[in-house]
């Protein structure tokens, strides 16, 4: 008898963090995996790789517009219509140049949409179905940057802060259900997003370690996870620094 495969959807599936989560999921057992992104070609590269790793898994690729609420709703509705969904991971994001966002409101607007509004729309569309079926795990990748605004990246931070507050509310809404919502807050991690930070000698976590923490947090149904975990402590300190001290820091 063929085992029933977990149905998983990854939004922003070309993100390196997401790709490494997928590698862990397919390693555990064959899955039914839907990869959502904005570039079919890149999604295909990810799917080909996973297919070699797990020949018995099923893979689907969906290309969509990430800020069009109508398209998002249609995509999610269709996916849930087909059958029960075990996990949805919302991973996309982009780390903008803060100065560019200050100088140009078009940039600022786009980054707020991609990092803040877009993941919320996807999550909201999923929450509806998960609540109805009283089943499923929803994981959203936020950031430590959402914990406290700072001058070097507060546009990105503000969008991630929006995600944090949104997930908090959603967790409250779904507290009495079997649906588990997880917010992941990575610290600086070695992915294409941070390639430019290496030259500044910034220490970056390995993407494999972060992906492992994400997958484990989903398994356990944790509500918030810092990845690597030490960031929980660091951000607690940063959040509690008095303004007078914080504003003197060059971060």
């Amino acid at each position, binding site marked *: 008898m063929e085992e029933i495969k977990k149905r998983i959807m990854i939004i922003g599936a070309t993100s*390196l963090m997401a790709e490494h989560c997928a590698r862990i999921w397919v390693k555990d057992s064959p899955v039914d995996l839907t990869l959502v992104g904005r570039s079919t070609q*890149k999604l295909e*590269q990810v799917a*080909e*790789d996973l297919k*070699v790793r797990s*020949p018995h898994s099923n893979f689907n690729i969906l290309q969509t517009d990430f800020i069009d609420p109508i398209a998002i709703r249609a995509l999610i509705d269709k996916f849930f219509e087909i059958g029960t969904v075990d996990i949805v991971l919302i991973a996309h994001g982009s780390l903008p140049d803060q100065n560019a966002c200050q100088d140009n409101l078009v940039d600022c607007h786009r980054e707020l949409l991609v990092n803040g509004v877009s993941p919320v729309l996807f999550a909201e569309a999923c929450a509806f179905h998960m609540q109805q079926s009283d089943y499923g795990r929803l994981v959203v990748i936020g950031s430590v940057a959402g914990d406290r605004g700072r001058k070097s990246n507060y546009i990105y931070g503000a969008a991630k802060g929006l995600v944090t507050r949104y997930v908090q509310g959603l967790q409250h809404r779904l507290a009495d259900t079997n649906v588990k919502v997880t917010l992941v807050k990575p610290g600086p991690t070695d992915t294409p997003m941070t390639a430019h930070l290496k*030259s500044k000698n910034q220490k970056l976590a390995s993407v494999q370690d972060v992906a492992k923490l994400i997958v484990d947090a989903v398994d356990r149904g944790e509500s918030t996870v810092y990845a690597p975990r030490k960031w929980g402590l660091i951000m607690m300190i940063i959040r509690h620094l008095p303004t007078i001290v914080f504003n003197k820091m060059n971060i």
Partner: protein
Amino acid sequence: MVAVSSWGRLKSSEHNVLEFSDRSQIQNLLKSNFPGVAHGMGRSYGDVCLNSNGNLWFTRGLDRFISFDSKTGKLICEAGVLLKDIQQMMVPKGWILPVTPGTQLATVGGAIANDVHGKNHHVLGTFGNHINKIKLVRTNGDIIECGPTLFPEFFSATVGGFGMTGVITEVEIQLRPVAGPWLNTEIIPYNDLDEFFNLADASEQEWEHTVSWIDCLSKKGRGIFMRGNHTDLNLGDIPNKSQLTVPFTPPVSLVNKLSLKPFNMFYYYLNKCHKSNTLSHYESFFYPLDNLQGWNKMYGPRGFYQYQCVIPREFGRDAILEMLNQITLSGDGSFLAVLKTFGDFKSVGMMSFPQSGVTLALDFPNKGNYSLRFFERLDAVVKEATGRIYIAKDARMSRDMFESGYPRLNEFLKYRDSGISSEFSRRLIGS
């Protein structure tokens, strides 16, 4: 700029690092970021993977598989995939890389560019012997696909071509079937070089993998011979062993006169008493050092050199004895001295290192000019015996030594990408 060093840690220098992750973007990225050179895992000991103050193209992000045919064992993957990833995924499926070096923490691209060899050279040749196709991106935007029958000259220049012919992006490898992860292995001590050669010859027919550790402080060349064959016996896999890490760089080399002699004696007698016939997991048999992460730091902040040469068989014994003699005279020595015979395989690469004969590899802590002068004495022996030095391990040989060891250099240069330059190429090819 990012500080990068190679495995020998002779220096750490600033590089403008460009990380590849999407193979469809390489053509675009190269156009505006050359000259430079590809860098895989930096497991080469010397300067082939370095380009101080210039561009360095990191290929580790190109780590995707593309397709695998479980009937034929043909694997297509990106060039930054680690040999380890292939082994761990494929061995449980009944396939294994036909040839691997003594570390599996190297990339497919790096293994091709140095046309690496393993313990089974006499049976399966080099890594390049198992490559069906290579896709190269050149700095002028050209994309070239080559293989043993498709643009064979380009293929022959690229295999063992130190990354000089373009960036390898995709590769088709022919894996070989294997029953499981286990090998039948034997450990046999030898008292001198004649015994070593007898053992190597006697093992050639019946044993796929052969290698030996030689006590380079012994004048006659005693050592421990190891051989192994894959076995059908299936015990399942073993759980991941714990990894040890060298936590920091000691201020001076831990490998010195005081530590070397007792270590070599200890290792020799330990293995001499060892039960001679055992079952070994492929990871511990093929890649014994991979479990000691960062062992290269043991040599302290000045780093170390590896000296590896190959000598044609007819001069092998005498040349090796003379080199051991030089080592004894210098009082310097090496923990990791490996002696092994190569088979008669003709390498596919114009610049491939392996050739029929015997290869000796030795590690030495960097003692500046003292080391350099000592290596010149070894060079003289190698040159006289018409041998050559392995470029993957080299950071110091002279142009003369290079040109005498690699007679196909001029032919090779026709296929070079003029937008690729490394510290190795500037040192030995002039640009």
